[in-house]
């Protein structure tokens, strides 16, 4: 089985599906001849030509608006928003149009657009190449939101996303685009949307993370184990609709939970998960649910490591939560 990095896995999925299904088109800024600023679409232009690998004018609203129209007409567009920080000009199209198309037409029209976009910090990108806006999209009824952490899941989730009929915002963790390597099967397989992955079992505390922070959480969990704290680590993979059963089963077992994300804390996904867990696991909880997140500030250029919820801060959250006595 070949070892790929996360970018190569995304590229592999796109190529595979474009060969299998001629309705799939890739579009965005610099995705064609150049193969994307991160090279996620490298080689696709050469293989599938300019009609299916489309270099668009520089307007995110236009990219998503035209992608919606293509999907309405029966194509499977995969627009790339170069950085998720630049998705806001398309926010109106995503929120007002894409998310609501099925509902407002009572299923007559659907727009299964899969929007790929790199998210998160850690590449020295400052305010506008680092953001994690996933909660804004989770808040919109009608969207599926996905964020893989590793190459195997990236390929399998992207293939699954391309084969279902709802719009998907597919957040790719650019901090680990090249650093995350792993064995990826050649050919076809899917990782179903809506299923979390239990990466490590433990019975004292549940750590919930996604995207690049899974790798930080994994380090923190290792450290915690050396202190004798046995953590269960869950990679959400699909952020919405999320795998509530796996989360509830874990917290019913451990009674303690730490939720990790790069996005700012207030109104972040961590708050929603904490609410869901207290509704379902109230009698099992032995400590307040802890959120270890990005701060409620814009994303800083120089102090980016201090902004991010890296392993040391996650470990602190684990320690405090594990030792909490009511």
């Amino acid at each position, binding site marked *: 089985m070949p070892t790929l990095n996360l970018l190569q896995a995304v590229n592999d999925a796109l190529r595979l599906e474009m060969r299998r299904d001629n309705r799939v088109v890739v579009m965005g800024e610099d995705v064609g001849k150049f193969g994307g600023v991160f090279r996620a679409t490298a080689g696709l232009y050469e293989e599938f030509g300019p009609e299916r690998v489309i270099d668009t004018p520089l*307007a995110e609203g236009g990219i998503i*608006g*035209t*992608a919606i129209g293509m999907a*309405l*007409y029966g194509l499977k567009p995969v627009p790339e928003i170069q950085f998720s920080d630049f998705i806001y000009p398309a926010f109106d199209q995503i929120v007002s149009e894409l998310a609501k198309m099925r509902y407002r*037409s009572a299923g*007559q029209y659907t727009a299964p657009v899969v929007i790929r976009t790199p998210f998160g910090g850690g590449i020295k990108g400052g305010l506008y190449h680092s953001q994690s806006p996933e909660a804004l999209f989770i808040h919109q009824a009608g969207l599926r939101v996905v964020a893989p952490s590793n190459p195997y899941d990236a390929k399998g989730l992207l293939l699954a996303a391309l084969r279902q009929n*709802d719009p998907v915002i597919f957040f790719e963790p650019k901090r680990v685009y090249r650093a995350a390597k792993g064995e990826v099967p050649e050919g076809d397989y899917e990782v179903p949307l809506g299923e979390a992955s239990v990466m490590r079992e433990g019975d004292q505390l549940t750590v919930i993370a996604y995207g690049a922070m899974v790798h930080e959480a994994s380090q923190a969990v290792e450290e915690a184990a050396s202190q004798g704290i046995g953590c269960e680590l869950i990679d959400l993979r699909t952020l919405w609709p999320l795998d509530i059963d796996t989360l509830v089963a874990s917290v019913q077992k451990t009674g303690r939970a730490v939720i990790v994300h790069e996005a700012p804390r207030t109104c972040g996904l961590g708050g929603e998960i904490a609410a869901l867990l207290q509704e379902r696991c109230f009698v099992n909880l032995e400590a307040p649910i802890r959120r270890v997140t990005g701060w409620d500030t814009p994303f800083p250029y120089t102090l980016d490591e201090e902004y991010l919820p890296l392993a040391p801060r996650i470990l602190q959250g684990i320690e405090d939560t594990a030792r909490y006595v009511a």
Partner: protein
Amino acid sequence: MAPANRALQLASSSRKKSSNKKTTVARQSGAMSAHPLLHTQGLLECYRAMLRIRTLDERMMTLQRQGRIGFYGACTGQEAACIGSAYALRANDWVFPALREGGAMLLRGFALVPYIAQVFGNSGDITKGRQMPSHQAAASVHQVSWSSVIGTQLSQAVGAAWAAKLKKDDTVVMAYLGDGATSSNDFHVAMNFAGVFKAPVVFVCQNNHWSISVPTDHQTASESIAIKAVAYGLPGVKVDGNDVSAVYAAVAAAVERARRGQGATLVELETYRMGAHSSSDDPSRYRDPAEVEAWKKKDPVERLRSRLFALNAWNSAQDKALQAELLEEVNTAIKEAESLPPPSIATLFEDVYQGEPWHLKEQRAELLESIKRHGR
């Protein structure tokens, strides 16, 4: 040279090679009696469709005043623009409408009862009462669902047209907009993408001179809307939108140009919103009654009727009979549509996703339990 003519000149010069009677007609808006495209039969069909939506709109505005419906956006004064443009389409062509193009889907065969049921938002509405009145959509006649957001449909139309081109279909996509929408960012991106993609799309701007209370000269400093097309490398055409023949000729030329693979056109139809923006609006607060009176003399329905009379293709006895027939049809349809029950409560949670995720199942159960315990 008048601004309108200059835009036409620009438009026609880009079509020099295919110069024929069609473009001549488009350039001579207002002097159409002998044009080759819309023969008497076509004029009669358009007249019937125009009178039908005039009749429907009048009845619906009355219903709104009686409190039987919540909202309505009438097409009154713009029937030639709506019908004349839609008449240029084939059955397989697509329409991305704005507020005043419901008449297009009626012209293209959508039934009146479900159309009116949408206004009531009841179980007869094929969109399950989800949207405000005058937001109809029907895949059966390729009238795409639209939001109340101004301009967003335009880039979608470009995408659909691009998809049709990619699939090698001969579908043309028509995207409607008002004069206010030309100020939106989506108008700019759609025109720009359409130019770059050479997409088979026709933008039809119903310039009715008012965006709720704001006149067109507060939307743009351009000498016309049509001339904006030039900057995007597209032809722009401006015609008398209250002359159904002029509308048809200009739009049909643009549609055929798109179908031949020559790309997009912006057609500006100069017309007038004779009534309010919607049932929630009071134009007497911002509009000079003299302006309204002046435009009433150009009423597109009356103009076409006079013309048909002059052609000896129609007479007042026939006209009275048709008016009675259409009123009867509309009243019967209203009666049937109004009698239908509301959508079932469970439909509230349908069609958010394909299938029903766990959280919507939970929320549906919570609502049904609340209704069981405490009523609606």
